């Protein structure tokens, strides 16, 4: 009993614990900080309530464009009335379940791959089968699915397709370039350095121009290439240079002893790389690779400029409809939220992975 009383007497003052203590410590410690907090609070009070009113209270959610113009707030109807077109573009309306299913497969695969315990050979096969199934669902022509020309593909599936296939194909190319940059053969080394530095020095848009305007000139008469595929090639070539630099960082992080040990047990170059160096080097660079995936995902929005109907372009074509003209803010906010969700979950995952890896499992 006596002890309990003592413990109570030793409790810190109310102002330094609990909510008050936290507020005092984190918001009002010292005059400058207090002023800063008050100014920030004033700023928030001035901006957040009107924004909230605009977005939720005064907004129109499921009306025609005409009714929207009379509403004082945001016009979310532009999304609710057009979301099918924004998400799927010119894909035939009755077949929208196919790209949707393809996206679900992708999300499922990504979700399953989150856990590092699942990183086995079976997962690689699952990805190959999954990507193939996605392609089949999009393209059709087999198993009674009507064929859909790739010129009709658009919206979110196209964005995801460009990002995922872009990275999958760019990864091996990037690894080869990184190995080439560290090669002892001068010619290969110089070629790889030239390629990497050239690509990293120019904006993606110039490569997209190249693929859309110049590339057709390279082909013999009569041969044409699919427009999406050309943009995809440009994205792959671009991303590969960045991956090469990341992988090079991983290769440089390898201790010399690893090479020497591999040599001393008589492994040749190919086996050294495949069995000893790359598995370790690629593991180090997983977090920066995820950042490259994020920027590749964001960069796919640039195909707007060569008039592919990705998520951004479908949104813009809704905006060019006279009924919905002038509601760009709402439409762009919606697209921004989609991109944000994608990128935020990836960057969160990359941070989690970084923590796990730095713990040295």
């Amino acid at each position, binding site marked *: 009993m006596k002890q309990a009383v003592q413990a109570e007497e030793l409790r810190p003052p109310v102002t330094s614990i609990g909510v008050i203590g936290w507020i005092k410590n*984190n*918001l009002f*410690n010292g005059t400058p*900080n207090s002023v*800063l*907090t008050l100014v*920030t*609070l004033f700023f928030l009070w001035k901006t957040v309530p009107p924004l909230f009113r605009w977005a939720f209270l005064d907004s129109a959610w499921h009306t025609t464009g005409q009714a929207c113009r009379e509403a004082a707030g945001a016009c979310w109807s532009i999304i609710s009335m057009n979301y099918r077109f924004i998400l799927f573009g010119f894909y035939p309306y009755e077949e929208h379940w196919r790209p949707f299913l393809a996206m679900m497969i992708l999300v499922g695969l990504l979700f399953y791959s989150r856990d590092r315990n699942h990183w086995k050979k079976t997962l690689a096969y699952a990805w190959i089968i999954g990507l193939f199934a996605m392609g089949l669902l999009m393209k059709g022509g087999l198993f009674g699915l009507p064929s859909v020309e790739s010129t009709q593909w658009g919206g979110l599936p196209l964005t995801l397709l460009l990002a995922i296939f872009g990275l999958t194909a760019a990864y091996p190319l990037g690894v080869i370039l990184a190995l080439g940059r560290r090669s002892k053969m001068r010619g290969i080394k110089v070629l790889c350095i030239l390629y990497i530095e*050239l690509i*990293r*020095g*120019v*904006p*993606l*848009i*110039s490569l997209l*121009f*190249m693929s859309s*305007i*110049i590339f*057709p*000139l*390279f*082909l*013999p*008469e009569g041969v044409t290439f699919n427009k999406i595929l050309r943009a995809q090639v440009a994205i792959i070539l671009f991303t590969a240079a960045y991956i090469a630099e990341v992988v090079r960082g991983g290769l440089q992080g390898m201790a010399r002893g690893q090479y020497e040990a591999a040599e001393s047990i008589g492994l040749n170059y190919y086996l050294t790389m495949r069995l000893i160096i790359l598995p370790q080097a690629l593991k180090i660079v997983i977090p920066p690779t995820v950042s490259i995936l*994020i920027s590749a995902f*964001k*960069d796919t*929005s*640039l195909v*707007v*400029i060569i008039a592919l109907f990705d998520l*951004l372009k479908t949104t*813009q074509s809704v905006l060019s409809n006279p009924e919905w003209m*002038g509601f*760009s*803010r709402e439409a*762009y*906010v919606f*697209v*921004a939220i989609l*991109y*944000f969700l*994608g*990128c*935020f979950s990836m*960057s969160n995952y990359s941070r989690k992975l970084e923590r796990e890896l730095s713990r040295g499992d």
Partner: protein
Amino acid sequence: MVGFLAYYLVSNTLINLERQKIASGFGFLHKESSFEIGESLIPYSAASTYTRALLVGALNTVKVAFIGIVITIFLGTIIGVARLSSNWLVSKLAAIFIEVMQDIPVLLQLFFWYALFCETLPSPQEALTPGAGISVCNRGVAFTIPEAHPAHRYMLLAILAGCVIIYLMRRWARKRQEKTGQFFPTFRVGIALLLGLPFVTWLTFGAPLKMDVPVLEGFNFQGGVMVSPEFIALLMGLILYTSAFVAEVVRAGIQSVSKGQKEAAMSIGLRPSLVLNLVILPQALRVIVPPLTSQMLNLTKNSSLAVAIGYPDFVSVANTTINQTGQSIEGVALIMAVYLFFSLSTSAFMNWYNKRVALVER
């Protein structure tokens, strides 16, 4: 094999070019461009050559990249420091800003700002005036500027002279401090020189005060300086997007300096400003500069997205040129060459700066 492939591609290209009756080579550069460019730093008209048009585009790119880089470093540093603030509210707001801006494609941000500018602001007749001499409308922002006067040129010269004097003064002050230990307030004297010299020049020219005020004439403003909505949207998108990345770079740099450094500096009796200037910043800069360089390059490269909102940057002008002349190979090659030049010169400058701040092992 590579040679054979190259031969195959080149021969195909030549055949195709001949079929489309496109003459290869850069001869088109001397022809009359016959298109107008919205904004230009140098005199330009539709009668000028393609070379001049492309130069205008390149200068516009430089303009937006330079202004963008300066503001981005400033804003990014503030946000990066705010992220580390002990004030919970400020730190969390900075974190939200960084995360949101990093996760939205820059092109989307450009479209958003451009749409915001064009759709929500009033027409020139009902322009907003947030401050004296500034008018904001959907055609752009009109600023009042001092009317052109010969004094301005001399004031600029005075600023340049001030810079030279400050440079010499710093060298002299450092030498004197090394020899005698006496401290000279370089910073305060420098500021006084930078402000004082142009002011004295201005006074000697009789203090010209006449202003060039933008006036509404017909459908748009005349006089003053008009900044186009395209430029503002482009600048805003680039600044907000890149400063989020710069903030992260700055945060990492400051965090890389161990706490003991600050404590040691304070224990030998340095003032807080000197702790920051002499101990923390030199060490943090070493970590900050290389990633900062790549962010600056990213900003320059991303400025090529101007073509999507119609700001006449280099890519936009080159694209018009390609559409008019059909010289696609030369056009894209020019785009690549110009950006390579920008990239290489920026990184050369930053490498030079990096060498200055880098650790000198003794």
